């Protein structure tokens, strides 16, 4: 069998913040009634974290649950575990109205780390990234320049960004350009 490849293996840039492509990440889209006990239980079981609140992101290492919409969750997991988790969900939710899809290979993941991280992202998205408005534990689905993306914080200066794999190069170029040391604004 062929080896799975991430979108831009090893891509990295250092400037006002460090931009790295994190490599393969398991991601499962789970749609359904988020208030249903069955769904909540299986989501907790496969991810090992609690159900997130509205716009919440509960992340623990490679695993996590992110609130994507009133009827949608994103389950994060190690890349190789994703197919097994989908099978587990299918088994647990059989007969209910839901959708679970392994979208790992449709996505690219970037990490933006460092003092300028907030600023790098704030240049590209209309979302309010002031430390009072956005911090760890939250996920924001928005756009980066012209493409949809979502991000959350794993530390006070660390963002993880998910975008479609087809626009990975575009997003990496955007982030690298925004992180150029000559382009610092020192707003935050």
């Amino acid at each position, binding site marked *: 069998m062929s080896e799975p490849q991430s979108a831009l293996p090893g891509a990295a840039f250092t400037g006002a913040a460090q931009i790295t492509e994190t490599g393969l990440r398991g991601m499962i889209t789970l749609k359904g009634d988020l208030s249903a006990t069955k769904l909540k239980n299986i989501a907790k079981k496969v991810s090992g974290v609690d159900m997130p609140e*509205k*716009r919440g992101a509960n992340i623990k290492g490679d695993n996590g649950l992110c609130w*994507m*919409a*009133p009827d*949608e969750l994103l389950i994060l997991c190690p890349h190789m575990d994703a197919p097994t988790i989908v099978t587990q969900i299918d088994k647990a939710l059989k007969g209910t109205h839901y959708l679970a899809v392994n979208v790992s290979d449709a996505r690219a993941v970037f990490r933006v780390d460092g003092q300028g991280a907030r600023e790098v992202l704030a240049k590209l998205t*209309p*979302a309010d990234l002031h430390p009072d408005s956005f911090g760890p534990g939250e996920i*924001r*689905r*928005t*756009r980066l320049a012209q493409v*949809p993306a979502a991000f959350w914080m794993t530390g006070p200066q660390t963002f993880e960004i998910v975008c479609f794999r087809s626009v990975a190069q575009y997003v990496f170029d955007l982030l690298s350009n925004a992180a150029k040391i000559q382009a610092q604004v020192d707003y935050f």
Partner: protein
Amino acid sequence: MLILHCPHCGIDCDETELSPGGEAHITRHGPGASDEKVEEYLFLRENPKGVHFERWRHSMGCGKWFHAARCTMTLEVFGTYPAQTTEPPESIRKILSEKRPGWSWRDFA
């Protein structure tokens, strides 16, 4: 630049995160309807100076549709509400009656 509150995910989103969906509260007249009704459904739209109701989709966010009541003249936004309704909710009508006494829009007032 418009900033609309998405009633589904609770984010005050910038217009550039949204996709416009045209006029709100349009009744779909399908097969079997009279020519006049189909014409109304397909082509006839309001073009008001003042109170207007629109559909928007939070396309770069939660992906859900919602409606917005706003003023086309001042760009004031009176409120937003989920799209699962065929008429403006009472709360929005109350705000409109306070801010634009005597307002009317199609059959609503």
